[in-house]
């Protein structure tokens, strides 16, 4: 292994780990048939892979992916945005919550190719010019996290919950945030953070 651990901080933890392993090229399973409907086909007949272009956090992004790639894996593995977390990969926990055209979506349960042209917002897209989003600040101020793994999903979901008008009381917040689980049990403070942000405090 070249470089040693001192190189990790310069290149980023993820990239260092990838560089350090004997990585082989990633083969895309490709069917022999040409497809009628997939967008952006290469002439080689890549019927089961597609080019998908979407706007992520205000930036136009594009990737060639196997059609089976979830939106979550597109963000984390192909677009370099690992802030959104994979908790269950089954749509049960909400850690993967992102906004698609303003709507809360479990990104683990939807295929990336379904969202051509969509506007995606992830946790990385909430801060503005180095200033935290008010809800991000509220999570810090009200101690709305412990291990932090559910937190990106909680915050993205909370932003939309407030925008939907579903944060008018603690009871309403609990109901409309029930898709975001927290095994550390930080719910009381999560609700407070959302409640206070909704009030504009």
């Amino acid at each position, binding site marked *: 292994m070249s470089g040693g651990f001192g190189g990790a901080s310069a290149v980023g933890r993820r990239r260092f780990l990838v560089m350090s392993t004997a990585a082989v090229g990633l083969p895309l399973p490709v069917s022999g048939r040409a497809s009628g409907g997939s967008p952006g086909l290469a002439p080689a007949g890549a019927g089961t892979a597609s080019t998908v272009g979407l706007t992520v956090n205000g930036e136009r992004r594009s990737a060639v992916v196997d059609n089976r790639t979830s939106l979550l894996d597109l963000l984390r593995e192909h677009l370099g945005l690992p802030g959104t977390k994979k908790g269950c990969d089954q749509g049960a926990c909400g850690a993967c919550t992102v906004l698609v055209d303003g709507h809360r979506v479990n990104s683990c349960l939807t295929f990336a190719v*379904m969202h051509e042209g969509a506007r995606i917002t992830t946790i990385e897209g909430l801060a503005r010019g180095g200033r935290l989003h008010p809800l991000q600040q509220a999570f810090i101020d009200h101690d709305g996290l412990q291990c932090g793994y559910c937190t990106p999903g909680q915050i993205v979901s909370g932003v939309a919950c407030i925008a939907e008008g579903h944060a008018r009381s603690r009871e309403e917040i609990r109901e409309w945030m029930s898709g975001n689980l927290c095994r550390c049990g930080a719910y009381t403070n999560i609700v407070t953070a959302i409640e206070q942000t909704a009030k504009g405090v």
Partner: protein
Amino acid sequence: MTGVYPFVFSKPATESAALAAGADGGRYIAGGTTLVDLMRETVERNSPTR
């Protein structure tokens, strides 16, 4: 991306094209809450050639 068989994805622009795609062995996907989970467990299996 565990288990899921490779598939061809299309987004038909007309109702008739959508009906044709479904009649031709395709499946419709909306939120994916059921279909994606079952595809991952290979309970839902598309033909390997499509």
